[in-house]
């Protein structure tokens, strides 16, 4: 024999009376305030900020994947436009790059010398 739906309902309704004792809620409130204080301390630090972002992201539901994909796309696009243009890939990446450093011309060095008349003198003479 099985109970009718009404009898089942009456049996389930007995569970309405299951409740914690009065003292439970006082302890509950103390713990709640304690947790809130700890949370406030955590949130004030950098790790708290990161934690808040992570929590915000995790609470977004399925849309977080769309946002994540969008952010990744935006980051790649920005990175592409900001990166300097790469040199023509004439050599394979494994080949060492030889840079030819042009030696400084001695003529250029001579041109930079001060050859004004005050420093010029006749042969064997020194002008002060």
């Amino acid at each position, binding site marked *: 024999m099985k109970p009718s739906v009404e009898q*089942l309902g009456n049996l*389930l309704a007995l*569970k309405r009376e299951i409740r914690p004792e009065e003292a439970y809620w006082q302890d509950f409130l103390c*713990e709640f*305030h304690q947790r809130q204080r700890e*949370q406030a301390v955590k949130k004030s630090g950098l790790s708290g900020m990161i934690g808040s972002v992570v929590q915000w992201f995790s609470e977004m539901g399925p849309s977080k994947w769309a946002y994540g994909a969008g952010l990744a796309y935006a980051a790649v696009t920005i990175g592409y436009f900001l990166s300097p243009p790469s040199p023509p890939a004439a050599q394979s990446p494994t080949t060492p790059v030889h840079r030819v450093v042009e030696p400084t011309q001695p003529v250029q060095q001579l041109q930079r010398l001060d050859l004004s008349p005050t420093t010029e003198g006749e042969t064997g003479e020194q002008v002060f």
Partner: protein
Amino acid sequence: MFRPSRPPDPDQDLVTRAQEGDTRAFDALILKYGNKLHGLVYNMTSHHEDTHDLLQEIFAKAYQSLRKFRGNSTFYTWIYQIAVNQTLNFLKKRKRRRGLSLTELDQTLQKDPALIDSTNEANPERQSRLNELQKSLNAAMMKLSDSHRMVVTMYDIQGISHGEIAGMLKVSEGTVRSRLHYAHIQLQAALQDSWDERF
């Protein structure tokens, strides 16, 4: 266009004060709805410690989100909805974490004072049968899927109407009725052996 006005939220004053940072006002809301939410969470988890932790999380979430509460529903409906969502998420995680067996669940449920009928105290045999019945009922409840157990908890235990349940679970009223019907059949079948017409 004329819209029927909704009755004012009886918690409007407490909510406003809590939104302005009055922690005592929020404490009053916890004390007002704590038992109701405890009933929801405990009948869903069947575990005292999980219920306690989950209630802490539910009230913390409500406190943090309180500024976003615009009064589109009553505060009670709003926080109840938070509790429903948090509980369903918790149960999903718990299932992933461990294959929860019925033996791991609270065995104290059957000893709860509320389930000990005072009229039966003088009749130990009847009380023993009632305890056995409650034990079978708890086991059968935990065998229901989360969504079926949720509607049984909300409708049969908490006394919430079909329409309100539909609104909170964001399903149609027909779905609520269908889930209830299926859950009742399952529970009736589970109690078949321990049911005594004299109850």
